[in-house]
């Protein structure tokens, strides 16, 4: 039975691996109340199901071993019936324990929260529109593909879909919740650890389902406040000649049909809001890291990096391309 | 070469047909009634699943007009009388009665299909206007499909009764056909309440 050995070995190696090198998108590296509650369920499951599995296989192995050499194994039917009864009762009991644990932890996921950060995430093929809601409209702002949350404060996220069904999944914070046309779902998460994490669309949503990631940042209270304040400001006005040319091109050309940059004439609502593009860390919903080079190649031919994305390759003169890139890189 | 056999009985005296659960025709009919019944149940389920998604039911239209639907229901229920009669006659191997009855049932079916056509004109909603219209049309179409098939069956059986040798096996087919017509009629009565009266009670 070296195989089961191998399997458990693999399992151990695997968990070691994942705790070692992936803490940004692992369900077993929880940093929020909700995800920790879920890991409690996981632990109990492992401790009950693992031994049960071994028990069954040992019983099977023994049944074969004791009858080796064709010796007839004996046990009266009556004993067997008692055994069956006992086994059934045991199974039922363990399942009851698991159901109870599952129910208790599920309650935590839906516990009401006080004074949450209110965010509305709208999923679109294939990116996330992130709106920070506020009683005071002037304090609301919109960004994309990057979610900032303060540590030790619950966040209440409204989930909307603009086209097909998507599913918001940030494993380190909470389980997933679907974004469904015509349905208003919400999910709450209470981060407990500052850091940068990763979320991803978990419901198959078409050609670029694979490249629909969400960059998640848990900031300390001060950092979050600063970030918010900055995001509320309109876009920086370009100073260098190339950036100025770039802005003029941007607003005059196809770009402005889809993208908005607050404080300019560009008011498109089809694509991501670029007001503070340069302050983000990833491009095209996580498809690329964000720096001047990647941004330029992205604008040059989006279909090469994200085949099927709705952003077209706008024909540009080399000069225009570099101007626009310069301008966008000033939008921090 | 199979193993040694010991003869313990003889079957040659058994009948070569039967009515009910010792005839395969009966099992076939039951099976397909179960399948189609399940289809109706789920479609009705979908109807009531969609209902709460609208503030009013029907959303903007007025409910289906009662005239044709009610007329259809009346005729359908009335048709149970000849239907039960033909089933009884079939069990008595009364060929003339069965011949006459099958023709009658076929005609009834044709008349009902005519009435059904009128019903579709009086639903007051198109299938592509909203989900309400879609599900109403779906329920009606589903039932019409099954009614049309059974009418066709009766027609074919009738033709066989007039043109071909009609043995006991065929009589039991007639009985099964009558059983299927019960299903058509009573499943409709349920659908009638759903399609015509739910909107009025909502």
């Amino acid at each position: 039975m070296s195989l089961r050995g191998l399997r458990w070995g693999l399992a151990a190696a695997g968990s070691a691996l994942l705790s070692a090198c992936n803490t940004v998108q692992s369900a077993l590296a929880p940093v929020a109340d909700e995800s920790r509650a879920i890991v409690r369920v996981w632990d109990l499951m492992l401790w009950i199901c693992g031994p049960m599995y071994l028990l069954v296989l040992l019983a099977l192995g023994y049944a074969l071993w004791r009858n080796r050499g064709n010796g007839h194994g004996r046990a009266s039917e009556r004993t067997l019936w008692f055994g069956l009864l006992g086994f059934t009762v045991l199974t039922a009991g363990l399942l009851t324990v698991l159901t109870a644990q599952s129910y208790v932890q599920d309650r935590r996921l839906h516990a009401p929260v006080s004074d949450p950060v209110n965010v509305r995430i709208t999923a679109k093929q294939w990116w996330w529109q992130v709106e920070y809601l506020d009683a005071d409209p002037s304090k609301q702002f919109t960004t994309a593909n990057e979610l900032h949350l303060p540590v030790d404060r619950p966040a209440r996220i409204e989930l909307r879909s603009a086209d097909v069904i998507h599913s918001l999944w940030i494993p380190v914070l909470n389980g997933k919740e679907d974004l469904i046309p015509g349905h208003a779902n919400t999910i709450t998460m209470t981060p407990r650890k500052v850091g940068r994490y990763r979320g991803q669309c978990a419901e198959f949503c078409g050609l670029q389902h694979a490249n629909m990631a969400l960059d998640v940042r848990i900031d300390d209270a001060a950092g979050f406040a600063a970030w918010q304040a900055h995001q509320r400001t309109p876009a920086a006005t370009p100073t260098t000649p190339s950036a100025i040319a770039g802005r003029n091109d941007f607003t005059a050309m196809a770009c402005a049909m889809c993208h908005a940059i607050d404080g300019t004439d560009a008011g498109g609502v089809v694509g991501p809001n670029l007001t503070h593009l340069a302050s983000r860390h990833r491009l095209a919903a996580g498809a690329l890291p964000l720096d001047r080079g990647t941004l330029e190649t992205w604008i040059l031919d989006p279909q090469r990096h994200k085949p099927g994305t709705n952003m077209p390759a706008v024909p540009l003169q080399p000069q225009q391309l570099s101007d626009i890139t310069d301008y966008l890189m000033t939008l921090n | 070469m199979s193993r040694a056999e010991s003869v313990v009985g003889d079957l040659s005296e058994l009948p070569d047909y039967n009515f009910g659960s010792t005839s395969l025709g009966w099992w076939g009919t039951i099976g397909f009634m179960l399948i189609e019944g399940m289809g109706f149940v789920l479609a009705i389920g979908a109807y009531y699943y969609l209902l709460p998604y609208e503030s009013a039911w029907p959303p903007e239209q007025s409910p289906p007009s009662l005239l044709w639907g009610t007329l259809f229901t009346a005729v359908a229920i009335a048709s149970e009388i000849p239907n039960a009669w033909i089933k009884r006659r079939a069990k008595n191997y009364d060929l003339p009665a069965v011949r006459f009855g099958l023709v009658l049932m076929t005609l009834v079916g044709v008349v009902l299909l005519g009435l059904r056509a009128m019903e579709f004109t009086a639903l007051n909603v198109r299938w592509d206007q909203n989900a309400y219209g879609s599900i109403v049309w779906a329920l009606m179409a589903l039932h019409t499909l099954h009614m049309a098939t059974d009418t066709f069956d009766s027609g074919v059986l009738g033709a066989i009764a007039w043109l071909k040798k009609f043995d006991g096996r065929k009589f039991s087919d007639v009985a099964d056909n009558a059983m299927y017509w019960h299903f058509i009629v009573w499943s409709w009565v349920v659908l009638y309440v759903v399609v015509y009266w739910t909107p009025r009670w909502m």
Partner: protein
Amino acid sequence: MSSRFPSEVARAAVITIALVAVLAGCERERREYHSSPTSTAQPHSRLSGLQPGDMLTTPVDPVGLHYENNAYHIAQGGRLFRWFNCNGCHGNGGGAIGPALMDAQWRYGGRIDQIHASILEGRPNGMPSWRGKMTDQEAWQLAAYVRALSGNVRKDAAPSRREGMEATPPLTRVPSQPPRAGDDSAQTVPAP
């Protein structure tokens, strides 16, 4: 051993089909992300339907056919039609400030290349020129969708009802209305 027959039958079928596939291919279904061949010649559609002598016709831009036969491009066109707010003037094709697009009336030609030109070049009395505001491919996709609005589309490529509030009937059920008025647009694109 008849049990081997079906597998052989299936295999044979698959092979023949593969050949068919190689020969035919399925223009209708291709998802083209990278921008396809764009038209070089801009057809100058006349501003008047009147013309001395016999009706003079310019050939259809083959690029147009390419877009017109592709379900994916037509669907993308429908998306752009909403995103670029064509509804603002053309009211879901029913017409408002701008002319209706669901009828057989075409002032500047109902051929796809003519519509493509109308979008990019603009037309008198209000239709702005979108050249530079959208890519050539997007214009072609829009043009293909606009033709579908009046049923001028192969039925197996036409989009059906769309998600959301229903403004137009499903284009699969719009009766085909070949362009009537307008100049050489009377000659419609032959459906392959």
